[in-house]
């Protein structure tokens, strides 16, 4: 029993750390000016943390960290409408990444590329419903390909991190 509670404390600390990291990356990203005149286009560096959580901590953890991060970021820097867009994008992209990872057939980069695309797709779907227009289909095309590019970049970085960061940080007992 004692052992179990110790694991839980560790788990809480790791979740907190990952969420905090995701939060910091989100903030950093909001400070980076966008190079393209496309609103909503971003690097998605926060996704590194989500990818890392996905491979090191598991499916549920990745989803939890991402959703928590989005809620926190929205309260701190965004508004309620930004939260709906982000939640849709975050939920869809994390779900897709979980599914692809579960098949066990794809590399981290590929999973991340799909995540990058579907983050944008989720946001656009909400925007389409909200604005009741299909004029933004163009916008989706642009974000589809930029999502692939940023997803590939994040996937490569994430892959290196997954290889280099030891598993024992995320699970198991503390060593004496």
């Amino acid at each position, binding site marked *: 029993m004692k052992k179990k509670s110790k694991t839980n404390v560790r788990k809480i600390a790791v979740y907190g750390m990952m969420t905090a990291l995701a939060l910091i990356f989100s903030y950093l990203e909001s400070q980076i000016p966008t190079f393209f005149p496309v609103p909503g286009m971003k690097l998605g560096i926060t996704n590194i943390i989500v990818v890392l959580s996905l491979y090191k901590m598991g499916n549920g953890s990745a989803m939890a960290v991402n959703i928590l991060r989005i809620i926190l970021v929205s309260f701190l820097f965004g508004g309620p409408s930004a939260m709906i867009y982000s939640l849709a994008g975050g939920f869809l992209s994390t779900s897709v990444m979980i599914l*692809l990872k579960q098949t066990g*057939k*794809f*590399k981290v*980069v*590929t999973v991340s*590329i*799909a995540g990058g*695309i579907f983050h944008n797709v989720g946001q656009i779907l909400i925007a389409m419903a909200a604005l009741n*227009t*299909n*004029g933004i*289909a*163009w916008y*989706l*095309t642009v974000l*589809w*390909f930029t999502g*692939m590019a940023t997803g590939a970049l994040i996937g490569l970085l994430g892959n290196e991190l997954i290889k280099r960061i030891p598993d024992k940080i995320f699970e198991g007992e503390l060593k004496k």
Partner: protein
Amino acid sequence: MNNGKKGKKRFKNDFLLIGGLIISGGAVLVLALFNGHNGNSVEVRVDGEIQGIYSLSENQTIEINGTGGHNTLIIENGKALMKDADCPDQLCVRQGEISLKGQSIICLPHKVAAEITDADNSDFKSESDIDIIVK
């Protein structure tokens, strides 16, 4: 990295998926092209100067006096097309119908350009010079 056959095989899935995603992206592009936003008016310019903005919801024939020639643009069923032109190449006539925002018909010899736009109703000019038609 992975070695031998196994490595190649593992990459194959990734290439297939990424290829599939690129094709899907292309499909989205095609969808966007064909399912684009309909404009409500056509803006006619000669040598860059706006000659008039005509509503697409009204069937009409617009005579355009281009630089060194004459063009006839007709609006029918929400679509605009260049019916006639006395230019030698007839390229503008062959461009067919336009109705999506941003699409245009250009007659280079006469410096005539007709582009689909979204304009306010008040901007519209009717060929018969009726300001407003109350229906």
